């Protein structure tokens, strides 16, 4: 009779298997918890930064302080302050008046000026002005920070209707010392310019190098040396590339400091090994029979590669490239070395303007003491994560789209 019931030795084996499975499950569970915690923390902190608070107040555009001929030079700040104060006749002390004024952002006067400059017929009339609140007042109304002036802010709210709206400024402004005015456009544009240049240079060079090494170069000691070096370059700490950029592009070639052009050159060097390695792997994965078939009907080596091998390797090449691009997007260290870490309030207009990039902007904001910047930091992280996630999504989409069977 064959005994098919479990033996002691077998139970031990099954127990070991179960144990190993549970280690995996525990590891996955912990990772998920930490990741969710991190995401929830960032989103919770960053979400309010996408909104801002406004109050509306009637402002009389006094022709005495705003000249019809040159509406741009008027003292709009005083106009708004006076209009706000007029709502609170009981506030008389100098310090309270100062406090009241501190609730209003500088941008309120700028917004009003823009409105009057665009339509000078407003001069002499009373307009309903939408005034942006300062960061401190904004944080109080968002419920993030308790203010010493809580009593006064509540009073403020009773007289002047305070409303919450989406902060478009966050998307259209450059960096600023005033938290309520600081925006990401400068950093986003800087990032796009920098990474754009990196890809423009890195992609053709990387894919070209991969095609040459994989399909054309005769195997020799030299190609082996090059291969080893490319693999090593992929593992070089990114700050070394920053030092290289500083020494070569800034000091030797004299390119402008803090410019996306230099950042792009440095990042191109940085992603080049990644692109070459991914492209070579993709080219190698194409069955040699396809190339032989092309050569067999009399295609030249180049025709065989460009007509048949490269199109089949394209999904892999694209995936590698986009992953390299995502790395370039998140890179901070090498850009610090070439001066992209400066405080730059202007939105860059071209690749040679001083600029900063998203991760560096996060680094800069995280260092500032104002509580409002903590929220901005988290918001910038959300934006960066969204960009990286869409880059990965595009990579997956392209891979699916171009993937072909043979």
């Amino acid at each position, binding site marked *: 009779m064959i005994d098919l019931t479990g033996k002691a030795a077998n139970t031990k084996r099954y127990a070991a298997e179960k144990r190993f499975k549970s280690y995996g499950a525990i590891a996955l569970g912990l990772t998920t918890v930490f990741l969710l915690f991190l995401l929830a923390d960032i989103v919770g902190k960053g979400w309010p930064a996408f909104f801002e608070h406004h109050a509306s107040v009637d402002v009389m555009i006094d022709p005495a302080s705003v000249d019809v001929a040159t509406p741009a030079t008027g003292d709009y700040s005083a106009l708004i302050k006076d209009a706000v104060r007029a709502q609170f006749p009981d506030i008389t002390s100098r310090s309270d008046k100062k406090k009241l004024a501190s609730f209003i952002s500088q941008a309120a006067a700028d917004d009003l000026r823009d409105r009057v400059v665009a339509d000078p017929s407003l001069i002499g009339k009373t307009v309903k002005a939408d005034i942006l609140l300062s960061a401190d007042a904004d944080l109080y109304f968002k419920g993030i920070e308790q203010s010493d002036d809580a009593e006064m802010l509540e009073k403020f709210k009773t007289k002047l209707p305070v409303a919450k709206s989406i902060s478009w400024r966050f998307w259209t402004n450059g960096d600023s010392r005033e938290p309520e005015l600081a925006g990401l456009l400068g950093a986003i544009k800087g990032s796009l310019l920098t990474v754009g240049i990196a890809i423009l240079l890195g992609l053709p060079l990387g894919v070209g190098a991969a095609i040459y090494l994989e399909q054309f170069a005769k*195997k020799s000691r030299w190609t082996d040396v090059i291969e080893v070096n490319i693999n090593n370059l992929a593992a070089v700490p990114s700050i070394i590339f920053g030092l290289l950029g500083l020494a070569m592009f800034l000091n030797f070639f004299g390119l402008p400091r803090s410019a996306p052009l230099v950042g792009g050159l440095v990042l191109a060097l940085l992603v080049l090994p990644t692109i070459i390695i991914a492209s070579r792997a993709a080219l190698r994965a194409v069955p040699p029979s396809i190339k032989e*078939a092309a050569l067999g*009907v009399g295609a030249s080596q180049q025709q065989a590669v460009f007509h048949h091998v490269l199109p089949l390797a394209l999904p892999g090449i694209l995936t590698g490239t986009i992953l390299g691009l995502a790395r370039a997007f998140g890179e901070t260290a090498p850009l610090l070395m070439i001066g992209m870490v400066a405080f730059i309030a202007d939105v860059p207009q071209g690749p040679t303007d001083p600029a900063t990039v998203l991760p560096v902007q996060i680094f800069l904001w995280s260092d500032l003491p104002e509580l409002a910047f903590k929220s901005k930091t988290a918001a910038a992280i959300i934006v960066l994560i969204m960009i990286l996630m869409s880059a990965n999504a595009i990579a997956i989409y392209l891979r699916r789209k171009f993937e072909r069977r043979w």
Partner: protein
Amino acid sequence: MDKQTTKANIVTGTPRIMVERPTRISARNVDIYYGEKHAIKNLSVEIPDRAVSAFIGPSGCGKSTFLRAVNRMNDTIAGCKLTGEVCLDGKNIYDADVDVVELRSHVGMVFQKPNPFPKSIFENVAYGPRIHGLAKDKTQLEEMVVNSLKKAGLFEEVKDRLHQSGTGLSGGQQQRLCIARAIAVNPEVILMDEPCSALDPIATARIEELIDELRQNYCIIIVTHSMQQAARVSQLTAFFHLGTLVEFGDTDEMFTSPTDKRTQDYITGRFG
């Protein structure tokens, strides 16, 4: 012809069938090395036009290596070296002035595993004529594609789906597509490297029929592991063993009365 003269023919390399047909390919003192490995040893042979010559022999005997030498496919293999002469119509194809692209348009190849391009059936066949500029316009190209598919006996099966992917066909159809692709560039010689080894018996039979038809117009060399196949399709058979050409002669004689002991052992199934 008695056995004695057949033996003499092997030495001089002129089997009976060669008398009726012109020589297309002749190899003289060919040695092929893969790095250190001596894959083909001092091979000389003459292969006639408008006939099927089969290369048989155990695995690793060099038959595929020599086949690939005839259209210089070995050039793509690193460390492969050839000495001696391989002549196509009297011209050594390893001469410095030979354009390998031109050579391969005259010597087509069909591979062991069907390897259609992952493109449409039409594009598969049209690729060769297109890169060689054989067609003047679209109509002529279409005509060439249809003719090639007809010659390969595939047209009737695929005429309604010329623009669907070639990789969607069955294995046998794919291999016939590869044959159509090879003959689309009007080669004189077609090399077939175990064309049926990945196919079922029915698909194999169709390919064999096709090879028999193509023999009327082409010089065909086929490498095969199946001695039955060699006996069925070829007029000439070459037996390779350990890098040497042991015997080359008329197929029917080779299978009925081999002169060499090794050939006899191989075709009777004693080794291989």
